[in-house]
């Protein structure tokens, strides 16, 4: 099996908090890899380090052989990402967002145009391509982000809680796209989610992180065996305990949420 994502002894420390504490794992090419853990466990921080948004305090991370700290641009070309929070330009239309992305990844114009059409049709947004993103619902935005993340044909797709806040229909639709992409294009997928049922249904392998440390890794059967439980949820609770966690300290999520509400009210 060929390794495509490699995390080696990685730590991320903020002033007082160690968000990620010496974790190592590999993801194989073509795998669907679930990355689970309670709030504040270090999932998002790990994804941010993998996607060059944050620098690791220690250790190194590789995407298709490219060190994300020293070969940033080469590493950046290998992946697409759907963030936990939307990262679209609301004032632009769906197709303008796609065009911008194509330019940032220096895609051939003609190719980008064809692929935009194909992808927007795939996520059922083709008839809304000239509408501004601010008129879209949460689910439509998420679909557009996925289409955009795929535009440059990445080898790896990172999905940070892609189904958060979406209804069951949209969640179902999204996972079937993702599964299709994985099967047809051999795309490697690393995702995080709080819906354990989704992870159970789709992931080839799962890693569980808690308090910045990897507490378990393996396929579903291995995790169940290891914890002597019947379902992923039971195994997960066994591994991470039942205490409720605070939201992560590092990203200012709570503050973002407040801003978002203020702005939602203004509009």
């Amino acid at each position, binding site marked *: 099996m060929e390794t495509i994502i490699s995390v080696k002894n990685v730590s991320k420390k903020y002033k007082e908090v160690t968000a990620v504490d010496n974790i190592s794992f590999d993801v194989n090419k073509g795998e669907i890899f679930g990355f689970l853990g309670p709030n504040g466990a270090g999932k998002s921080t790990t994804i*941010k380090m993998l*996607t*060059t*948004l*944050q*620098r690791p305090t220690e250790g190194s991370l590789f995407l298709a052989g490219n060190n994300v700290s020293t070969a*940033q*641009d*080469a590493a*950046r*070309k290998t*992946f697409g*990402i759907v*963030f936990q*929070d*939307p*990262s*679209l*330009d*609301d*004032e*632009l239309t769906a197709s*303008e967002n796609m*065009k*911008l*992305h194509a*330019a*940032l*990844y*220096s895609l051939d114009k003609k190719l980008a145009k064809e692929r935009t059409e194909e992808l927007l049709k795939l996520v059922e947004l083709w008839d809304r391509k000239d509408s*501004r993103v601010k008129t879209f619902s949460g689910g439509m935005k998420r679909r557009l982000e996925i289409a*955009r993340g795929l535009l440059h044909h990445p080898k790896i797709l990172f999905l940070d809680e892609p189904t958060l806040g979406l209804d069951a229909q949209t969640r179902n639709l999204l996972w079937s796209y993702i599964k299709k992409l994985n099967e047809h294009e051999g795309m490697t997928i690393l995702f995080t989610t709080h819906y354990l049922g989704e992870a159970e249904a789709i992931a080839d392998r799962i890693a569980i992180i808690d308090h910045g440390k990897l507490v378990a890794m393996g396929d579903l059967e291995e995790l169940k065996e290891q914890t002597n439980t019947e379902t992923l949820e039971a195994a997960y609770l066994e591994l991470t305990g039942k205490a409720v966690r605070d939201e992560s300290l590092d990203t*200012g999520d709570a*503050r*973002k949420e407040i*801003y*978002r509400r203020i702005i939602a009210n203004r509009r």
Partner: protein
Amino acid sequence: MNTIYILWLRQMIRFKRSGVRMVLSIVQPLVYFLTLGFGFNAMFQQAGKGSYIQFVVPGVIAQTILFTSIFWGMNIMWDKQFGFLKETMVAPVSRIKVMLGGSLGGATIAVIQGLMLFIIALIFGFHPYSWIMLGVTLLVMALLAISMVSFSSGVGAVVNDMQGFMAITNFLVIPLFFLSSALFPLDNVPTVMKVIASCNPLTYAVDAMRGSLINQSHFGLPIDFAVMGGTAILLIWFSIYRFNRIQI
């Protein structure tokens, strides 16, 4: 090049779609121009200084540009809080280009607003001494805009909350403006004020604007351009430095 262009274009599209906000930011300088311009005109003339309207127009054009560009960092804060910055930060392009594309967009908008004010001033009777020198004025406007936009973007890249950003820029913008000779000539002010004004980079932009628009310059265009060029380089460097260190 393509990256810079597309990020500039994004700002142009956003500006075009911003509707009322597009003209709102020139209202304040316009009020200054109309009230001060016509209010002080007679007094200024009695003091033998010529037309105050002629005198104050370069100052309020500089004000328009200053106000739009120094708050430009809000856009960076916005992109940071609402995600778009992440899209550019994970893309395989250098952050210098990301910074330059956005800043050139901001600077273009600031210059457009400065020109809008200039046109309004023409309607109210302002007349430049030489139409050819307008090219120099435009260059001054561009230099001022890119300096202030860069400064503001750099601050926006460092600071993580909007209150903090507003506190810093509000703290700076009023002293910068009032101690810049935008509203009064530097010839007869107390020495302390003159010294402070001489340390203020905006003074040189106003002075160069006045030099090229009404042929009245305190320091002379070469000194003005040297100071403005130096300031621009320093502030662009500051912004690039901060952009390279953004971690989201």
